[in-house]
């Protein structure tokens, strides 16, 4: 009996060789879906995870996955949109065995994520931004994004009730369609309260440039503006500066109320936890992941910060009523008759663009009532 268990040298060599070969293979091949039950999910952020803004919103979404059985989350922050992010993705795949990766910054998509999609066809990549196109891009790539314009409309409603000077301020990064839609939505929301309200916009030119954001906020408050919001990667500086000067603030990306508990009115936040859970649930179940998914307030992709102590009763009422209206779906912020601040007609009487309208994705104007210029 005993010699049954005796290993000859040849057997030993054979089993060792097989083992080594298997190890080599499992190293060479990215984790396949067969291992999905114990999968590693990678998140990559362009800025710090605790920026009270864009990156924190994603990191909060990632944190929501950490309790899920069999899922381990790996994260990397401050990764620039260069060859660095390609190597980070590769490193997550090679060294951590990541099988699903979320590169969260807009600029990661082309060429960086696409290069990795081609190199690792068995790994799934989903990018925040809405650029995936079935005709052009591989099936292991995909996009998800939220319609947050209505959140800025609700910010505008509360701001419109709160302002005494009837002048609002907006600190914006760059005059690109997504940002312009937020600025316009904010003003239109405020004008639903009082059509004489104006909104001064200042573009800083960069996604993250604390000094200019502070200067812009100060310049806005100096003009008598008493409610400020923004669209920059980290609203921290704008919120703290505005509140420090006595102005009210509406938040963006994440909840900034801890930075200014008295002056924070509400904020348009991403709810990425919902989106990431949806992807990971499908992934664990072995179902194919959607390649293109978008949603707004009604779909739970976007949420509002709880109303702050400075919000009055009329504002609260209109906020709740508008939110309820939006939750039904089909709400249009951009609807006619509407002119740009240069006098061009952007929507005729009866024309309405709901948040899903493709026309909004190439927006290049500021609406009447916004003080500022796109170029």
């Amino acid at each position, binding site marked *: 009996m005993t010699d049954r268990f005796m290993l000859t040298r040849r057997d030993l060599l054979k089993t060792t060789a097989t083992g080594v070969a298997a190890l080599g293979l499992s190293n060479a091949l990215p984790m396949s879906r067969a291992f999905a039950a114990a999968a590693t999910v990678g998140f990559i952020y362009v800025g710090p995870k605790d920026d009270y803004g864009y990156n924190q919103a994603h990191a909060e979404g990632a944190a929501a996955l950490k309790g899920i059985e069999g899922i381990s989350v790996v994260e990397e922050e401050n990764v620039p949109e260069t060859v660095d992010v390609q190597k980070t993705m*590769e490193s997550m795949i090679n060294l951590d065995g990541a099988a699903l990766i979320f590169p969260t910054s807009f600029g990661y998509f082309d060429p960086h994520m696409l290069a990795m999609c081609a190199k690792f066809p068995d790994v799934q990549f989903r990018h925040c931004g809405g650029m995936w196109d079935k005709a052009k891009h591989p099936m292991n790539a995909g996009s998800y994004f939220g319609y947050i314009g209505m959140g800025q409309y609700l910010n505008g409603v509360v701001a419109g009730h709160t302002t005494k000077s009837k002048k609002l301020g907006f600190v914006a990064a760059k005059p690109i369609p997504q940002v312009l839609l937020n600025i316009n939505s904010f003003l239109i929301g405020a004008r639903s309260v009082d059509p004489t309200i104006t909104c001064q916009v200042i573009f800083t030119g960069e996604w993250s440039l604390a000094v200019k954001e502070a200067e812009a906020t100060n310049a806005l408050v100096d003009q008598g503006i008493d409610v400020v919001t923004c669209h920059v990667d980290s609203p921290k500086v704008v919120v703290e500066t505005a509140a420090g000067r006595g102005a009210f603030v509406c938040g963006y990306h994440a909840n900034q109320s801890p930075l200014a508990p008295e002056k924070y009115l509400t904020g348009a936040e991403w709810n990425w936890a919902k989106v990431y859970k949806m992807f990971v649930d499908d992934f664990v179940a072995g179902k194919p992941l959607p390649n293109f998914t978008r949603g707004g307030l009604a779909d739970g992709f976007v949420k509002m910060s709880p109303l702050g102590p400075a919000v009055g009763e009329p504002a609260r009422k209109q906020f709740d009523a508008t939110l309820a209206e939006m939750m039904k779906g089909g709400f249009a912020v951009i609807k006619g008759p509407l002119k740009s601040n240069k006098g061009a007609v952007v929507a005729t009487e009866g024309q309405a663009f709901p948040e899903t309208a493709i026309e909004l994705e190439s927006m290049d104007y500021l609406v009447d009532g916004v003080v500022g210029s796109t170029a």
Partner: protein
Amino acid sequence: MAETVSNADVPMFGVRGYPAALERVARRAEAFVIPVAALIVGMAIFSLFILAVGKSPLQLYEVMWRGGFGSWFSIQNSLSRAAPLLLAALCVALPARLGLVVIGGEGAIVLGGVAAAAAAMAFNGAPSFIVILVMGVAGMAAGGIWIGAVGALRHYRAVNETISSLLMAYIAIALMNQLVEGPLRDPASLNKPSTQPLAEAYRIGNIPGMEVHWGIVVGIVACVLSWVLIEKTRWGFAARIAGGNVKAAQVQGLAVGPLIVGFTALAGGFAGVAGMLEVAAVQGSANASLAAGYGYTGILVAFLARHNPLAIIPVAFLLGGIEASGGLIQRRMDLPDATVLVLQGMLFIVILFSETFYGRFKAFNPDLWKRSDHLKRIA
């Protein structure tokens, strides 16, 4: 001990010293031992920092090794990150040999990238080697004009080059944003304004058998050529004299103005090529991602290399490795990204501090031995 006398010309009274062959080694070893010792001291201080935040320094260095150097993948990762640093560091090191502290290489990189992208648009349709050549020349010219202007302002208008180069970097970034969001913008790039994507034929690929683009070769060649220029040519000799003492150089009849403008322009040209490589080998178009901070990391590399173009090569690889391992440190040890910045900062301070040790150790400078022995004798 009589046969250990190192220099027959100096009167010897039983002086301690090295055999002649060893002395050469000892003198040369200084330039190697001091930086390595500084690295070790820097890492030791950093270990205290890591202990203070409650993590294991041993695990940290193990992770750093694995992430930056421990496997073929990690080495290629480090090399990829080192590629732009080589050229960015030359933008600091070359003017430094003339005594100028230029810290605005970032500006030359972004403008080099934009110029290269614009050149590719202008020559679209031409054979690929011509377009790539034109892109290189355009990138080099843009960067060269930018930093050359810093040198000219310094020499002819006495404007401090450190301040002006930094301020001009901000102007360069604003100019790049203006160009890629305005006249050079590809109308299809809605939410990330960029120039027209480069046709596949005009891209620079990877070195065969590696995952590293050709930029690393360009960078190494530029470093070697710069070393030859500084150490082996009369221009380099003149530059070193002017760097030591401008007045002395002028008294000698050296054309200091053209030297300064020429060296700063060449330095900026190298940074411009780094920008061109980012466009041609990485990004495929010019956009705001060009301002990724390579110009600033290049300052660190150049100072760590003591402005020696050959030393830039290993130092860039080392810093590339530190950056490559930064990701793994975040993922495995749950430390913030700033950890790597703290390490870089500590190394930078310690290595700057170590500059004061050159020429002070008797082990590397036998003359000191002789002098102190002589002093003892006459006392």
